[in-house]
């Protein structure tokens, strides 16, 4: 097991190198000068001043030297300093990560809670009216642009009904003191029920807007995977032995059918973590997605590189998690022998 993990991590190194090189090259080739952009469209700035800032951030060095310094920085755990924020990149990223993870996990949770039961019903009653309605609804979910759904939710729940706050992560005045950055966890640790409720109210709409696509996907996979297992011999045997139908589905078929579901959820979680800049923008959610979009627009090279590195890391870790959960759910797969 340990050696398997180690091998996987070693295999990830070229991926990291590739990702950093591609992003470095992309940012280097993309037109646009971060210092010109930083100074904005107002006022006088002398050429000497801009040259000095370029020098202070090492932007006047040759490409390979900049890349080398970047790698050397990573090796020492230093991601550099943002040109726009003038603060360490590691700090700028880590203050945004909890918000993104909290939102993604919550969206995944909503998706699972709705989609797995719906998928089970659809699989058991295949091609029934219920199945068709479920299929249709789930596909409607995956066919909506996320920001469009988000705006419609805001209009309905915040402006018309006035039951949910429009945006942000928490209100001021609930007495919540962020410690871990995971606000729901913080509220629970501090035993502050009012704050927990407030955080949940803020989470509801963005999580729903984000979960729509994942919900559909999870339901479809649950349905197809379960209908496949239901037809298999051992399930038929169980049924023939007189085991009640509900028990057959849940105890025998579902456990095996969940394998592909788990894989897909893990991989999609990675996509949620990396692809929610649009929903984050609509709901003013202070996550990593907003940060990376801003960083690309302002050509804040060190910040873009840091963010992409974090995304790559997330991808590798989640892939590994998916493979490990496979082993957990299906003991027949042994990682000892696998290459």
């Amino acid at each position: 097991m340990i050696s398997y993990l180690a091998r996987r991590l070693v295999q990830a190194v070229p991926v990291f190198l590739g990702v950093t090189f591609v992003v470095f090259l992309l940012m280097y080739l993309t037109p646009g000068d971060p210092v010109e952009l930083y100074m904005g469209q107002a006022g006088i700035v002398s050429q000497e001043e801009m040259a000095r800032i370029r020098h202070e951030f090492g932007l006047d060095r040759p490409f390979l030297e900049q890349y080398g310094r970047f790698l050397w920085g990573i090796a020492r755990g230093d991601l550099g300093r943002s040109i726009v924020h003038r603060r360490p990149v590691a700090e700028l990223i880590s203050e945004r990560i909890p918000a993104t993870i909290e939102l993604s996990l919550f969206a995944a949770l909503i998706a699972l809670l709705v989609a797995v039961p719906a998928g089970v019903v659809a699989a058991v009653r295949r091609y029934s009216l219920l199945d068709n309605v479920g299929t249709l609804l789930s596909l409607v979910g995956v066919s909506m642009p996320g920001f469009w759904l988000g705006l419609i939710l805001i209009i309905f729940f915040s402006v018309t009904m006035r039951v949910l706050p429009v945006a942000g992560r928490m209100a001021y005045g609930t007495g919540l003191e962020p410690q871990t950055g995971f606000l729901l966890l913080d509220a629970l640790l501090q035993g502050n029920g009012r704050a927990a409720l407030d955080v949940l109210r803020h989470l509801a709409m963005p999580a729903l807007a984000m979960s729509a696509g994942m919900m559909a996907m999870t339901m479809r996979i649950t349905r197809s995977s379960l209908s496949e297992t239901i037809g298999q011999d051992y399930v038929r045997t169980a049924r023939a032995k007189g085991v009640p139908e509900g028990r057959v589905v849940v105890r025998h078929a579902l456990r095996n059918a969940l394998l592909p579901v788990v894989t897909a959820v893990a991989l999609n979680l990675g996509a949620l973590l990396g692809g929610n800049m649009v929903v984050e923008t609509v709901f003013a959610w202070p996550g990593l997605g907003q940060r990376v979009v801003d960083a690309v627009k302002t050509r804040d090279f060190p910040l873009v590189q840091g963010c992409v590195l974090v995304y790559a890391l997330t991808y590798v870790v989640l892939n590994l998690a998916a493979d490990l959960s496979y082993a957990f759910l299906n003991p027949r797969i042994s990682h000892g022998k696998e290459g």
Partner: protein
Amino acid sequence: MGSRAWRAFRRNRLALGGGILVLVLSLSSLLSPWIAPHDPLRGRLPDRLRSPSIVSASGKPYLLGTDNLGRDILSRILHGGRVSISLGLLVVGVSIVVGVVLGLVSAYAGGWVDTTVQRLVDVLLAFPYLVLAIALMGLFGPGFLNLVVALAFKEWVTACRIVRSEALALKNAAFVEASRAAGAGLFRILFRHLLPNVIPGAVVVATLRVGWVILMEASLSFLGLGIQPPQPSWGVIIADGRDYLFRAWWISTFPGIAILLFVLGVNLLGEGLRDALDPRLASERLSE
């Protein structure tokens, strides 16, 4: 599609409905120069922000209302469909060709070729889609073809992976071995024997990905990196109208419904094709 598959497909009423949706929306977009009631690009400023109506004091009515420059929403949706749908088809088309070729070669050649392609796939997969697209749009500059390239840059990976795994399974199948023993060349084996067998899987995935690409274009438009004005796409019309949601809900709502219906149609069609063509095909990711 064999006759058994065709019957299975026809039995699936949802898939049939999806096919009809796709057909109707594609045709009306294709015919937009002839059927659009107004000029989609030029508006009348005095007619700005008119609500949907079946009557009009002056000339033809604005059935779905007008936007902030007095442009007819219905005409823009019809016209925008050309951009959105052709973008979806083009991106997926390019990706399928690249993905199938690289997938087949990767699987058949093995060795360092396979390793190189798969490392490239890994690197691209580790990039969030939007970040890559934003960076590429920055690099290439605005424009329809650049958008196609930016979106296809990562899109081919999906097809590549599926084709590779299917081709690996077939590589040592009896009929391929037989052909090889009979002295068939590399190209003959790849394209006469392996290709036909991996095509159905690729087609199913492709169908499902068309909708995804159209949604990605909408997201890029939302972030201000989509199609050039005044040329509309569905995503551009929604993004333009979002500031008017309270005052002129129709600007964003109708193109949103157009995307919804088209992507829904494509997805129903894709699912139907999957059920009909290959019931055992593992469910690929619809979203990312």
